[in-house]
């Protein structure tokens, strides 16, 4: 347990350092679907249209991402416990 705690703290430190470095970089961090797929489609005369169900409005998309992450995490965790039950201590 102690080992896991130390490792988690180390990973969090690394993540904080990485976030700091990335935030100082000049990239705009757009997705490749925007900088490659949509750009090429636009040049070819077939620009992307808005989604039929457009959740990309204000914080709505963030809300749906949170719901999706929670649901995915729950399903994954439930099945994980089925497949990898906790080890019983003698």
């Amino acid at each position, binding site marked *: 347990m102690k080992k896991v705690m130390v*490792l988690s703290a180390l990973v969090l430190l690394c993540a904080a350092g990485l976030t700091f470095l990335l935030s100082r970089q000049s990239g705009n961090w757009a*997705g490749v679907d925007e900088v490659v797929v949509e750009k090429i489609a636009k040049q070819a005369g077939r620009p992307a249209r808005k*989604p*039929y169900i457009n959740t990309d409005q204000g914080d709505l998309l963030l809300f749906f991402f949170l719901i999706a992450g929670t649901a995915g995490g729950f399903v994954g965790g439930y099945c994980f416990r089925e497949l990898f039950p906790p080890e019983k201590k003698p």
Partner: protein
Amino acid sequence: MAKGRTDFLLLLTLALALPSTGQAMHISEGILPPKWAALWYAIAIFFVAWGLRDLRVKSAREPFFKPMVGLIGAAVFVISCMPIPVPIAGTCSHPCGTGMAAILIGPTLSVVVSSVALLLQALFLAHGGLTTLGGNIVSMGIAGAFTGWAVFRLSRRAGLSPWAAAFLCGMFSDWATYAATSFELASALHGNSSFLHMFAAIGASFLPTQLPLGIFEGVVTAGVYRFIAVRRPSLLECLGVEARRCPLVPQKTGGAK
């Protein structure tokens, strides 16, 4: 055992620590002309039907198969909507998870879980599109999973260790997904210009982001494989990943019920 858990925690925490804003390989709504969208849908439907048939057969044979498909499905869903910043390119993209899925549940079932993930993303996350769903299933589900599965099998047959084979599987399945996306875009949009020229141009545009991301996906795939091999190797044998006799004895679950 503790080592396996630590490796898995490290990989998971690293993966969760990296997300930023942005999207990735999904072909957005309206980009594919109707005849091309219909063609990719027809191909996707055939493979999804094949996968559903396999799911019925394998679930009847192995009781642990359904939770395994559930776990892999959740992982593919989360992984494929998780944008990762690539510093050398200044852009974001996502891994697919279909290589890992193909090793564990087979390529046809990977198509099924990819279809569910992509459908949910198109419906609720403005990620991809409903008219382009067939194209996205073909690139991420079919091309990614079948390439990863073939690379893993060939690597094992060539005598590579399971970790190296899993690494190559994850890496090539990622690259195959983006190569297939390039193919779909080039075939639909090249117009009067050369198909090959456009295919190469799109592939080259993906390269700075996908080259490192493919390597990252290879490392994650090898890490997941290692975790299962250390923690519960009988699963790999019963799934047919390792060619030995399945020694699995039904275990008491640890409180999830």
